[in-house]
């Protein structure tokens, strides 16, 4: 085999397929021979209309009890999450944060799935799940510590059953699986959800988590946010089949949901969680969505993707969609939006002030929590560090200077 022949067999991308609507383009190609029907589960069109079709029939019951108040709640969650995200992005631009991974465009996937969870369920996020964290009641300012560079996490995962952000791609899917195996061993009926991206689906850890969860029938929901890109690489560079179809090979169901439709995400996640609770094992949910911003604030998407693509997805904006629905159904009045606007602004202000007030960590934090039991070498290095600092304090008034430890 030569590399040339590999190249010849590489997937051909038809022009514009990346921008190709709600997945029709790609699913058609992958499901060659099948109908061109979108494989997406959708309950709310981009115009904000409720739809009923064969594909969503199984799932509508899971949102049958959703009240107008619930809908307003989902809307509020999405708006506030977006506001928080926008604030964090500008704080990064102002030098208050070292980096930010924006969730812009993925609000419905995160709020829909996040609101499907029960308090005793456990969440394993990656590093972009700010909306899910919001649903879990994690104070948004807690998410900013690692991006500001003052800690490597910053919250107690057991406080809200929301694990720490995981930066190494895919690792957390195995943790989720193991946790879920433990839940099953305990005879509990809570469920576990693992978030990851389309890029992550290529990692060995993710494949192994599929294997383990299937073999042990673990109560875990794999929630893949396919936002179309892994930094500069489109999903085509990770897979030749729609991602949700991967599940079949492992022996559990996979479903693709319109990730910009908060109601559909809620319904499908509830369904998957119910399966887990009923002892029916893992499910893969692929939320088909779009990363509207850069991968992170250090990324430059103009190097690899066209503006038109983003524009086509803006038409499917998850927040706009629900707003249209709320307005068309007379579920809101102007007061609602005005109040929410004010609440948003207040949140932005609170986040901004909290970040600016966030102190740099104590220098000795380097040596904290390295071991649960303590360790002689750490103690020795801490003492050297302290002695070295002291030597500077007496020598000049130039304040703190670099420590000596590690020598």
């Amino acid at each position, binding site marked *: 085999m030569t590399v040339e022949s590999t190249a010849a067999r590489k997937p051909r991308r038809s022009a514009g397929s990346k921008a190709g609507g709600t997945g029709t383009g790609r699913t058609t190609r992958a499901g060659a021979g099948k109908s061109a029907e979108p494989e997406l589960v959708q309950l709310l069109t981009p115009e904000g209309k409720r739809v009923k079709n064969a594909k969503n029939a199984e799932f509508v019951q899971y949102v049958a009890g959703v009240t107008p108040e619930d809908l307003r709640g989902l809307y509020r969650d999405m708006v506030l999450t977006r506001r928080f995200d926008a604030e964090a992005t500008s704080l990064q631009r102002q030098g208050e944060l070292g980096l930010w991974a924006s969730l812009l465009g993925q609000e419905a996937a995160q709020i829909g799935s996040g609101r499907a969870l029960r308090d005793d369920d456990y969440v394993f996020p990656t590093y972009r799940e700010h909306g899910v964290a919001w649903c879990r009641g994690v104070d948004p300012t807690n998410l900013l510590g690692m991006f500001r560079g003052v800690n490597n996490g910053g919250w107690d995962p057991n406080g809200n059953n929301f694990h720490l952000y995981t930066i190494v791609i895919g690792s957390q899917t195995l943790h989720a699986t193991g946790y879920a195996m433990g839940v099953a061993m305990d005879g509990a009926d809570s469920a576990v959800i693992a978030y990851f991206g389309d890029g992550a689906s290529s990692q060995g850890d993710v494949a192994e988590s599929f294997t383990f969860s299937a073999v042990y029938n673990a109560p875990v929901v794999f929630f893949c946010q396919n936002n179309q890109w892994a930094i500069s690489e489109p999903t085509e560079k990770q897979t030749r089949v729609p991602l949700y179809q991967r599940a079949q090979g492992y022996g559990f169901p996979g479903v693709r949901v319109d990730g910009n439709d908060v109601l559909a995400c809620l319904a499908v996640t509830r369904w998957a969680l119910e399966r887990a609770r009923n002892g029916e094992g893992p499910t893969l949910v692929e939320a088909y969505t779009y990363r509207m911003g850069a991968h992170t604030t250090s990324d430059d998407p103009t190097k690899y993707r066209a503006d038109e693509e983003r524009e086509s997805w803006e038409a499917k904006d998850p927040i706009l969609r629900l707003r249209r629905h709320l307005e068309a159904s007379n579920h809101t009045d102007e007061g609602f939006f005005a109040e929410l606007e004010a609440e948003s602004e207040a949140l932005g202000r609170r986040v901004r002030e909290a970040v600016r007030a966030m102190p740099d960590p104590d220098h000795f*934090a380097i040596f904290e929590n390295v071991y649960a039991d303590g360790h002689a070498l750490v103690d020795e290095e801490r003492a050297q560090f302290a002695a070295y600092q002291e030597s500077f304090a007496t020598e000049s008034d130039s304040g703190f200077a670099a420590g000596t430890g590690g020598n």
Partner: protein
Amino acid sequence: MADNVTTKNLALAKAINESLRRALETDPKVLVMGEDVGKLGGVFRVTDGLQKDFGESRVIDTPLAESGIVGTAIGMALRGYRPVVEIQFDGFVFPAYDQIVTQLAKMHARSLGKVKMPVVVRIPYGGGIGAVEHHSESPEALFAHVSGLKIVSPSNASDAYWMMQQAIQSDDPVIFFEPKRRYWDKGEVNTEAIPGPLHKAQVVREGTDLTLVAYGPMVKLCQEVAAAAAEEGKNLEVLDLRSVSPMDFDSIQTSVEKTRRLVVVHEAPVFFGSGAEIAARITERCFYHLEAPVLRVGGYHAPYPPARLEEEYLPGLDRVLDAVDRALAY
């Protein structure tokens, strides 16, 4: 030299880029692989423009799977290719660690020398750029402990250019640690020069009172330390190791026999680090020459800290000067 058109002033990252370009041009078997190396040119733009000029089958955007990247590179090497793979950041090499340690490193020995493994694994490493977790580590000792791997780290643009040429030409696997905080430092690169041996250390500043040994990102720091010490009348020699495995102990010995004092500086944790190996060997070789114990300056036995603490964690001018003073005080 003045009108030598082959000398260019290049940033270290650009020097690697030009070196890869040269390798791709001269040897059709050379391939570049990794996450985002194509259109984006890598997150540090080290592979910028290469896919445009050499095509998608020679500059390959891979799936997001490090074990896959190294494992398939091994297969391609078995087929006669010379892959140069990029691991995006130091902390992400571990999914590939199994392939590197159990397969890449051992294939030559396992095949009784029948199989060559001309694979280069490029890893931007080290701290000082204010990044989040897993983006600032120095795992070289974890690889140096493994036989069958060569480990190198250039400190300047010229070495980056030439050492990459040599790494690609090597029939052994080379872990090529790129000092990411020096990516933007410029230096003269003579693309026609005849480079010195890949594993030879280089005296980058002559001195008589003490030897500072470093590699990669810490060489520049040690040069600054030597300059600062010179103002206090101390005459330090600075040795750029360039290669961690094999290591040029002869050059360290020669220098230490002259200066009689040695301080080793690296970013990686001191405990079980490359400095420990240097201290042990040099103590053995130069016992009667040494006027002071070999001292080491490096990271702590603690996770790499969040960005706002990294200045405390990383060896800086003062910490190295302090070690120099202590060595001189014996």
